[in-house]
């Protein structure tokens, strides 16, 4: 006998909030490292992308993987820079700040949407509980 069920939508909304919150963490890492020409492994910082994965049936979402964006790294002329090569070029991270800002807005809105679902479902259960009065 299943004693406690019926709070599925709450768990799903929470999974969405957690995933979006982690995504915002990834975006803030991208923004913070937008000028980092050294990743400690002999190259510039590479933009990270949070990849989401749907759980089986209706079970919410999880952050599956944080993958590196393998697009081309821009090279700019900066002779005299400690990280510059023989031609005076440095390789910059492939982070585009406007794109990160848009992604941040989208992630924050998605977080809010999940909160809205949670709140609405909470109110629905409360109206059901009103029947017990």
């Amino acid at each position, binding site marked *: 006998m*299943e004693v*406690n069920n019926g709070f599925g939508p709450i768990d799903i909304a929470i999974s969405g909030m957690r995933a979006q*919150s982690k995504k915002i963490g990834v975006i803030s890492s991208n923004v913070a490292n937008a000028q980092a020409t050294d990743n400690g492994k002999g190259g510039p910082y590479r933009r990270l992308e949070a990849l989401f994965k749907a759980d089986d049936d209706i079970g919410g979402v999880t952050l599956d993987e944080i993958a590196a964006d393998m697009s081309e790294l821009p090279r700019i002329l900066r002779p005299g820079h400690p990280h510059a090569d023989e031609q005076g070029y440095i390789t910059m991270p492939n982070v585009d700040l406007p794109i990160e800002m848009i992604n941040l807005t989208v992630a924050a809105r998605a977080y809010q949407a999940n909160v809205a679902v949670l709140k609405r479902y909470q109110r629905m259960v*409360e109206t059901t*509980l009103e029947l*017990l*009065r």
Partner: protein
Amino acid sequence: MSQTSNIVDILEAGIKAESLRQKAIANNIANLQTPGYRRIDVKFEELLDKAMDSRGAVDLDEIKPVIHQPKQTPVKSNGNDVNLEYEVGEMVKNTLRHKAYVRLLNGKYRKMEAAINVK
């Protein structure tokens, strides 16, 4: 052994368990940044499920809520595994359950009162 099929007793046990769980959640949120802290939870519904027999009778000693560390959520770099969103979700669910139990108990008491007031 204190077997009971009295709904008031079972509801009381449920309300006690929810109160304890609320404390556990508050403790988890308070320790959101504490290094090495693992979140705690209250086991009650599983116990109730196990303790219930076909007649709906329950041994009250078997459904005492117990605090345990699930150790299932991913651990952060400081050894802490509390996630604020998760705790908020647990709190919402706990509050709704608590509300349901209190209303059911209230209904039970009102029926008793109605019986007492019969002249």
